[in-house]
């Protein structure tokens, strides 16, 4: 799981263009959206949905499920490990 978390962090930094950040700067359990943690917004959510589909073959059609999946990098990694098709 830790390997997948680090992989996801690298992909998030790349796709969201988080210049100057390294995987170590991202707390695996911190909220990704809202005022704390990475403080991502709705456009970032769209980028993450594209990332999941492109890199792991996961289609996230349910917006409510997305809220749970994108709570933190750890919840994202758990969802990916259970549902990945590639």
């Amino acid at each position, binding site marked *: 799981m830790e390997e997948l978390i680090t992989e996801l962090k690298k992909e998030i930094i790349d796709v*969201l263009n*988080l210049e100057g950040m390294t995987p170590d700067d991202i707390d695996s359990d911190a909220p990704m959206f809202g005022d704390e943690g990475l*403080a991502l917004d709705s*456009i970032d959510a*769209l*980028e993450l949905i*594209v990332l999941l589909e*492109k890199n792991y073959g996961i289609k996230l059609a349910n917006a409510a499920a997305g809220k749970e999946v994108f709570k933190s990098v750890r919840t994202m990694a758990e969802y990916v490990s259970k549902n990945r098709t590639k």
Partner: protein
Amino acid sequence: MDIFIQSAAHISIQNPLCEDWFENPIPHTEGYNRSIEPDYKPFINPIAARRMGKLIKRAIATSVSAIQSADLEQVDAIITGTGLGCIENTEKFLSAMVNEGEQFLQPTFFMQSTHNTISSQIALHQKCNGYNCTYSHRGTSFESGLSDALQQMLLGRINNALVGGHDEMTPDYYNMLGKIGYWKQGEISEQTLKRSNTKGSFAGETSVALVVGTTHTQHSLCKLRDVDLLYKPSSESLKQAVERMLQQANLHVSDINAVMLGTSGDCDFDETYKRFAQTNFPNTPTLWYKHLFGESFTAAAFSVYAAATCLSKKHVPQHLVYNTPKPLEQPHNILIYNHFQNINHSLILLSQC
């Protein structure tokens, strides 16, 4: 009513956000040149910057810089001219469409693939809810925006406006334009451009922001007297347009101290500039600017910026002088003439404050 150019800022192939080019221009010898990027941190929050392409960052930095130099908190209008818009992100979006079979398209590239993204991003950054418009008229995009700003001020609809000319040149687009003769082969220099009898010029990138307004301030660079756009004019109709512009400004041909031309080293297009100068201003010194800033769809923005700087400093540096039938006096009035592929032509008249 007098209209003034209050301030100006540029990011280009010369040192950015400063006037180093006026005394110590950087010579360029390559056909392809990208802008020199400044530090964007003083202008853009890093969180916001991560979603911006190069051109958006340049547009915001020049806009913020110009608005600050004009001592303004806000502008009444944001008007942008761009030939290609954010072509870098457009290419990324289109490449992803092709490579991924129209799947997995990233929203950020899509959002920034439209021409009017530049003007709207500046407005979002400045929290400006006023008039917002983008002109995408290839080689006369900037002049169209400037003309809009001038007319709106003359009609009393606005008191000031931020007018920009912004274009980037990606390697792919440079190569495509090269195939249709846009660029010279081999080493470029001021002398090779001046003596050129071949097609093509050399590429630069444009990001120029000007604040224009109806109030004369201590910062004002010069007066913006008139802007005229002409479509495929004959020599005679161009002459009439010059006469009309001078008459409306109560000036004579002899009052024009210098004519700024879009001469670029492309023999097909420079001939038109030579003919214009010989026909209308045979005894007036001519200036050029593209040898410093390169060619791009909105390069004409540099002609206004360079002429305004000369009027503000009451001096024309020797490296801007193209031809001097008589000694160059202190500039009081500069007429700017540009054309795009002999199709769209523009005349802009600037005077000392």
